[in-house]
């Protein structure tokens, strides 16, 4: 039951994109077409879950063990960057179909602040290993959900006649605001 609450909390209430504003750049950048949005969502679910596990282990056993917590920022970004590189090489070799599907979205994830943000949130909320793993996965699912929903709406908006100054990014942001507004309805569910 606790995990169900965690899932609702991470996916809907504290949605990493719409409530915590992490990962807005890929959110606006890759949401113009449904195809790219799905690719990005898959890549994020994959990398964020793995990054959550590894950074938790690094923080608990390496940084806290050696008492060098001030190196957290540097070590986390290195872990994420090398993880992305490693995942890319691994997928290219063993799962070329998935690699082709994710394409350019994998390297882009290094600078996706949602990944690093989720890892930092796990630490600041003092989650245990299992909770941190579950939370990273649920945060990633929330990111994917918001991205795919937004891409669906944005495809329709592109067909509409938008006033000239509001075109493109501007109307995208307003649309995102309305989606975020609908997500606030989940507040108080748990």
């Amino acid at each position, binding site marked *: 039951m606790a995990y169900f609450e965690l899932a609702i909390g991470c996916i809907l209430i504290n949605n990493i994109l*719409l*409530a*915590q*504003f*992490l*990962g*807005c*750049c890929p959110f*606006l950048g890759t949401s113009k077409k449904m195809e790219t949005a799905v690719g990005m969502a898959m890549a994020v679910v994959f990398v964020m879950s793995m990054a959550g596990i590894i950074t938790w282990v690094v923080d608990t056993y390496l940084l806290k063990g050696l008492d060098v917590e*001030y*190196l*957290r*920022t*540097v070590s*986390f*970004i*290195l872990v994420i*960057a090398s993880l992305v590189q490693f995942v890319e090489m691994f997928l290219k070799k063993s799962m070329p179909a998935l690699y082709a599907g994710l394409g350019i979205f994998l390297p882009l994830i*290094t*600078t*996706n*602040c949602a*990944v*690093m*943000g989720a890892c*930092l*949130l796990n630490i*600041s909320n003092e989650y245990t290993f299992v909770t941190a793993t579950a939370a990273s996965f649920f945060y990633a699912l929330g990111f994917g959900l918001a991205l795919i929903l937004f891409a669906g709406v944005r495809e329709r908006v592109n067909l509409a006649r938008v*006033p*000239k*100054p*509001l*075109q493109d*990014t*501007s*109307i*995208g*942001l*307003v649309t*995102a*605001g*309305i989606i*975020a*507004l609908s*997500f*606030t309805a989940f507040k108080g569910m748990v």
Partner: protein
Amino acid sequence: MAQSLAKEFTKGLWAEIPPFRLVLGLCPVLAVTKTVENGIGMGMATTFVLVFSNLLVSMLRNVIPAKVRIACYIVIIATFVTIVELVMQAFTYPLFLKLGIFIPLIVVNCIVLGRAEAFASKNNPIMAIADGLGIGIGFTLSLSVLGAVREFLGAGTITIWGGTPVFDMATVSSSFQPFSFMVEAPGAFVGLGLLLAIMNLIPSK
């Protein structure tokens, strides 16, 4: 030289002002601009990181091998972010708590990495500092403006520094009702979108 230096500096203030003209680094823009104070603090922290990472990247531009350059830039940026984090923790603790995880997240702010890759790696250190300073100040300005709009509409106050508002609508009119939508998450998206639309109305040249 002096003329092009001024050009690199001023382009960040209008022609390429982030996040309006350069749509990069949106996360801190949306997340911390509940008050003007948060916007200024975040802008200054980012400016510090931008200037020094630009300087170091530019000084090392002939040393860093092209293949591992992104990793090198990230380590340089992360070092300066750690410095900012420790300094803010020591001297501006209330602000440090308010900005929370968005200070370590300057590392993955695409503006910083974007300027290192697009500008500092190709220009000399003095130009790189001018660029970093210009873009940084532009970023601070945008954050303050968005912060002012959101705080004024959403809470009826303007807080520049230190946590006490310098202006409060409640003292002007007791019947004032704040539009709290603006300080909530959706208001950030809508506010930025509408500001962007206003910017688009003004021609850039």
